[in-house]
């Protein structure tokens, strides 16, 4: 198909680049446009009136606005994995190859079966679903809800991962100017001239705001020329950052602003390495909000018909985009500004059939203008109903000042109900806008610290005041940020008047009159809401969904609350607005995530031996942020248990090595290091001899175990503490709290050395033999010289300085060898070759877990944040002689009750049974019920040494029930077996092997 000519493109004018033609498709139809077009302007240029269907009634809808306030013209942009639902055609910058599709219709936009909903509209009124669909109960999920869900929603999201990338960035400035219309440009110029570092953002792809869309003259130049000069000056200033296509979407605490830059959205696909969008977090000393104002609707019958358009939007299409939305236009305006449309239409050759102005007396100049345009003038008139089809408008019914109704044939109607200053960003921190009677609009009330509002956003609706505002507030902002402003000069511009007569809703409409277009909220819905008691604006909003659509009611809300005000006899300010919330316009979820998706969701921490382990084919597991080797499968081993059993057997029978560098390590120095440790651990450390290691447990202040680990005394005034992998940061924070907040008088210095050391556990009967081959030959690591729970410094592999701890998690003769992390890779290779003759294996976290369970050491699953030291069998460690964190609260009756679940071992009565962590304990024969619940299995392992499963668990009064049998009940995995309670230490209970 070849594209049709751009039938509604004006022959000349506009800020489009006619030298290049761009091809695009809408609903499969090929069309063309030019650089500088939006999708909406290109559709208009191609004579397309119908752009979308509404949410509830599937009403045909045209293009209403020319900006981000658009409620109607929403499309699915792009296709496949890049499909973007609900994209406003009015904000899409046209690019070559653009593909868009209309939404919420079937089979086609022109003929939509669901438009029968419109016939059912007497039933589908506000809140109808709260009143029905209650019977029978089961039908909700099966029938009603799927139907409702299918009918709801507009576009379709892709089901494939988003192929584009996003990023985030920070920016800092003296003055942030939000909006680059005449006000914003002037504010930026004025701040920049004072020397301030300025960021100017505009959501449009071109600066200029209304200057692009109106026939303004500034300092004798056209608005567009003045703007070009202003932008040029700003571009030349290195202290100014100009950000086009950047919406400031939210104001947050302490002058932090969120902004979205659409970096690649105007391209078919982003260039290589180009993010699609960038989320800016801008910290500004001062901010000037110059976001302009949004023109609002008037509520009359059929006001949603395709062909009805905001007057300012119509001028945008005509002046900026050189596209004619209509050929025979009606204009319905309650203010002077709307009249600009007449002059612009005359210039563009669009016939103005009629001007309907409800004001009883209009200025003479306008009367002349109407005559010049050959338009019928209905002074004091009202448009009651607009009639048309999906293809366009046919006529309007005008109620004259004398009460007659006349029909006027038109194919378009421009409407201006006045202007709402864009105050949203002033309200994000909780302020409320205030009503101004003179302009019949809400303006900013209190503004957030550091933010000022300027131009049309303050209700200054004439160019002169806008420019003056910009000059003044830009300079003041710069001054407040510490600069000296230069004497301001305000460019000259002609005078403008507003002369608005408030008009919210036309009475006597015969057809549906819409307030919220996208959500199909009619004036009648508001009446029903009022009748049913939903009178607060917030109730009104929620009951009718007014203002809850993708446009957040930018063109609709004030009409809605004005109608409610009239119904309840309250004033508009008494009625109030609903709450403005970020984002100002919707922001892609991907942009908030930036780089942090997929594997980059969170940083990954790699152990010093990672590369080596990967070479060995290790299976890795996520342990918090760490990746750790879980087991090392050997060729032929297909299931994890075989590998793990082999690793355990090798350690218990010969020797194995495991990277335990992930354990937290904290270097603690100072004269009072021991005192601090005494206060954070339940047991004592100040009396620990130098060269010794001790196991310790620490509590939270509420008496529950926080963490455990070993701490070694390296010197009189120096210890090194180890923490569990999971709690490393938390313990560091806790120690800093204890030191800085509780006991600042102590002479203690602490720093995390977790990353400094590669630490390997070398365990098994041949551990010493292996170590011996690695270390400085002069070093003595005999049982005498370095007994169990000793520590010494040594050098290994011919000169690498290290620390050797004689500690054991596995229950075997074991050492932990710490070397500077850069040598981790080399040292594990050296350990493997040193141990080769003894049959050394590398073992992973699984085997480590098996052996600690066999030894009954509590770990993560037992340190569950609710267990006390006594529960875990550590009660004996709790010193009676000193205070320590958690001591007092640990004595609360609820924590000392002997019936509390406490640590015990478990074996299956039928030794072939498998144990499962998470199974609950019930008395034999007890009915499975919550009241019979005695505790649960915390950790299990298959013990290759014992050839059956063993488990640890917390069970009521556990330590006193060894030998008793209970049920391990596990209905979620269909398990229900008998287990015997036993000592939690399954291997070498006397600990002989540790000490050899």
């Amino acid at each position, binding site marked *: 198909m070849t594209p049709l000519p751009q039938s509604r493109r004006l022959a000349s004018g506009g800020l489009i680049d006619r030298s290049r033609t761009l091809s695009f498709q809408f609903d499969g139809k090929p069309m063309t446009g030019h650089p500088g077009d939006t999708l909406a302007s290109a559709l208009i240029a191609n004579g397309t009136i119908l752009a979308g269907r509404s949410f509830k009634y599937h009403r045909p809808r045209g293009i209403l606005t020319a900006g981000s306030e658009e409620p109607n013209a929403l499309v699915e942009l792009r296709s496949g994995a890049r499909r973007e639902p609900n994209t406003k055609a009015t904000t899409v910058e046209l690019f070559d190859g653009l593909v868009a599709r209309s939404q919420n219709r079937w089979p086609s936009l022109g003929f939509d079966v669901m438009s029968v909903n419109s016939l059912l509209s007497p039933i589908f009124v506000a809140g109808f679903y709260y009143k029905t*669909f209650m019977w029978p*109960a089961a039908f909700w999920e099966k029938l009603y809800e799927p139907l409702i869900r299918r009918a709801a929603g507009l576009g379709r999201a892709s089901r494939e991962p988003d192929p584009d990338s996003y990023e985030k960035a920070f920016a800092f400035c003296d003055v942030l100017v939000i909006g680059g219309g005449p006000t914003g440009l002037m504010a930026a110029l004025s701040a920049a001239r004072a020397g301030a570092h300025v960021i100017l953002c505009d959501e449009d792809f071109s600066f200029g705001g209304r200057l692009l869309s109106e026939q303004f003259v500034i300092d004798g130049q056209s608005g567009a020329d003045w703007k070009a000069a202003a932008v040029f000056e700003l571009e030349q200033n290195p202290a100014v950052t100009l950000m086009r296509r950047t919406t400031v979407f939210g104001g947050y605490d302490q002058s932090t602003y969120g902004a979205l830059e659409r970096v690649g959205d105007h391209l078919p696909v982003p260039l290589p390495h180009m993010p699609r969008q960038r989320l800016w977090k801008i910290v500004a000393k001062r901010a000037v909000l110059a976001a302009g104002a949004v023109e609002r609707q008037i509520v009359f019958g059929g006001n949603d018909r395709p062909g009805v358009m905001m007057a300012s939007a119509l001028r945008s299409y005509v002046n900026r985009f050189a596209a004619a939305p209509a050929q025979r236009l009606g204009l319905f305006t309650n203010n002077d500004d709307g009249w600009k449309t007449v002059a612009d239409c005359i210039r563009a050759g669009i016939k103005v059939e009629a001007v309907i102005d409800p004001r009883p007396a209009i200025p003479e100049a306008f009367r002349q203008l109407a005559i010049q345009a050959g338009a019928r003038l209905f002074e004091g008139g009202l448009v009651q109903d607009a009639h048309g089809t999906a293809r366009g408008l046919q006529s309007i019914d005008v109620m004259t000042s004398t009460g007659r109704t006349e029909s006027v044939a038109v194919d378009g109607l421009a409407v201006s109900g006045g202007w709402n200053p864009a105050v949203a960003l002033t309200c994000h921190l909780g302020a409320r806008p205030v009503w101004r009677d003179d302009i019949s609009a809400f303006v900013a009330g209190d503004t957030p610290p550091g933010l000022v509002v300027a131009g049309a956003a303050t209700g200054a609706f004439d160019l002169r005041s806008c420019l003056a505002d910009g000059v003044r507030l830009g300079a003041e902002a710069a001054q407040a940020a510490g600069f000296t402003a230069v004497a301001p000069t305000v460019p000259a511009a002609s005078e403008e008047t507003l002369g608005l007569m408030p008009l919210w809703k036309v009475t006597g409409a015969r057809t549906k009159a819409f307030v919220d277009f996208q959500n199909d909220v009619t004036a009648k819905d508001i009446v029903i809401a009022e009748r049913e008691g939903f009178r607060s604006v917030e109730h009104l909003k929620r009951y009718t969904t007014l203002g809850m659509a*993708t446009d957040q009611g930018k063109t609709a809300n004030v009409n809605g609350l004005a109608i409610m005000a009239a119904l309840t006899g309250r004033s508009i300010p008494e009625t109030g607005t609903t709450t403005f919330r970020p984002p100002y316009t919707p922001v892609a979820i991907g942009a908030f995530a930036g780089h942090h998706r997929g594997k980059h969701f969170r940083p990954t921490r790699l152990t010093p031996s990672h590369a080596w382990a990967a070479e060995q084919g290790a299976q890795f597991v*996520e342990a918090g942020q760490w990746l750790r080797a879980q087991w090392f499968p050997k060729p032929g081993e297909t299931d994890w248990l075989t590998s793990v059993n082999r690793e355990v057997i090798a350690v218990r029978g010969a020797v194995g090595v495991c990277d335990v560098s992930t354990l937290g390590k904290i270097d603690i120095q100072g004269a009072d290091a021991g005192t601090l440790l005494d206060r954070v651990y339940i047991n004592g450390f100040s009396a620990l001899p130098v060269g010794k290691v001790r196991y310790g447990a620490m509590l939270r*202040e509420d008496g529950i175990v926080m963490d455990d680990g070993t701490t070694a005394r390296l010197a009189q005034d120096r210890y090194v503490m180890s923490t569990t992998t999971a709690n490393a940061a938390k313990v560091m924070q806790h120690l800093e709290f204890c030191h800085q907040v509780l006991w600042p008088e102590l002479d203690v210095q602490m720093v995390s050395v977790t990353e400094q050391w590669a630490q390997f556990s070398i365990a098994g009967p041949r551990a010493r033999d292996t170590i011996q081959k690695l270390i400085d030959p002069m070093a003595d690591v005999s049982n005498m010289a370095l007994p169990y729970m000793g520590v010494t410094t040594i050098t290994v592999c011919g000169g690498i300085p290290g620390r050797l701890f004689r500690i054991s998690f596995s229950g075997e003769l074991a050492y932990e060898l710490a070397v500077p992390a850069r040598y981790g890779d080399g040292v594990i290779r050296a350990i493997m070759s040193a141990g080769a003759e003894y049959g050394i294996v590398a073992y992973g976290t699984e085997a480590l877990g098996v052996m600690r369970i066999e030894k009954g050491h509590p770990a993560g699953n037992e340190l569950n944040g609710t267990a006390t030291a006594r529960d875990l069998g550590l009660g004996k460690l709790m010193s009676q002689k000193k205070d320590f964190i958690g001591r007092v609260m640990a004595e609360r009756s609820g924590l000392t009750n002997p019936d509390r679940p406490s640590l015990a071992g478990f074996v299956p009565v039928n030794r072939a049974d498998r144990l499962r962590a998470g*199974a609950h304990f019930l008395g034999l024969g007890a009915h499975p019920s*919550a009241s019979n619940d005695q505790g649960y299995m915390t950790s299990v392992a298959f013990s290759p040494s014992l050839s059956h499963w063993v488990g640890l668990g917390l069970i009521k009064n556990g330590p006193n029930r060894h030998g008793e049998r209970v049920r391990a009940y596990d209905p979620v995995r269909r398990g229900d077996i008998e287990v015997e309670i036993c000592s939690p230490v399954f291997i070498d209970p006397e600990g002989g092997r540790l000490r050899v």
Partner: protein
Amino acid sequence: MQYSAFSLLKNALTGHRYWKPAWREAQPRDRYDVVIVGGGGHGLATAYYLAKNHGITNVAVVEKGYIGSGNVGRNTTIVRSNYLLPGNVPFYEWSMKLWEGLERDINYNAMVSQRGVLNLCHSDAQRDAFARRGNAMRLHGVDSELLEKEQVRKIAPYLNFDDARFPIQGGLLQPRGGTVRHDAVAWGYARAGDRRGVDIIQNCEVTGFRIDNGKILGVETSRGFIGASKVGMAVAGNASRVAGMAGMRLPIESHVLQAFVSEGIKPLIDTVITFGAGHFYISQSDKGGLVFGGDIDGYNSYAQRGNLPTVEDVCEGGMALMPMIGRVRMLRQWGGIMDMSMDGSPIIDRTPVDGLYLNAGWCYGGFKATPASGWCFAHLIARDEPHAVAAAYRLDRFATGHVIDEKGQGAQPNLH
């Protein structure tokens, strides 16, 4: 007027001219048998059950703003009873049962949607913890299923199974869990209470309590004194402020939790999915918006709004879990003030003041509790003794050590 398809049709034919207000715009009277402070879900439900279960109809609910302006109107609508600890499971399951019959009971469609709640797990330890939880639920007769990765894939094929930082290993499913339309709960209870004679008084802020000799006499409000023999506080995020007026300090901090909704899209996500490792949970409302949230902002706040880092954090979780939502746009973000208790569990109890009762500490999970909370609080107020399923929610449990700490975080409210 009873709501039904029939009454809707009948009114449609008469231009909807005859609907009555869902609840009367009641003016405060001098005294009531019971005054409930707080027109949120819990307060309104309490008033309804006082009338329905205990025949106490001389009741007022006083609300400082409009009813539903608090957390009941700003939550992510998830209901479930997949709790772990014995103090909690029976209570939340009772709530689940009440949800199941609610709409016919109160004659209001609150869109109780039992679409299933799926919690994902990413490690063996998490799976064991889910097994423990699932088993605890089963022990109390609550439905729970432990799913393997492939079963999760069947339910939600669009999740990131291939390229995840924390690969999905399985999940815990509660098929009866789901969502309920937040506002409808407030309005439905209000209407049902009103029909039984309860006065719902909006724009009436409680500013103090009148207490004599340790006994409650009534409440001071922005609209004058209202006498009452008994007063129940159900003010959620404002619990400390209101209890403070009676001279109490509570084991509670007020924190903001944010929630987010996307633009409306056609059905995409059919269950409730929670991604604990990524602090993200999501469901799709019947209107088509993806409703999602994550962690609390983490500092004391009464501002009812949050900050940007949490938005980023939540969306990072979303993109990590379901990278197809990248181009779906967030429409709105808002916050609610939550009564974060020191053990993450609620309090429904008497207070040191005779006739003054406390309902608080719901954290980010009290929406699902609404029916049972109302039921049990009404029971406590009417009979002056705790209801059996809420017996563990005592105020003195912190002093005695009988805390109910599902997450094991201890006395740090922002970590619950």
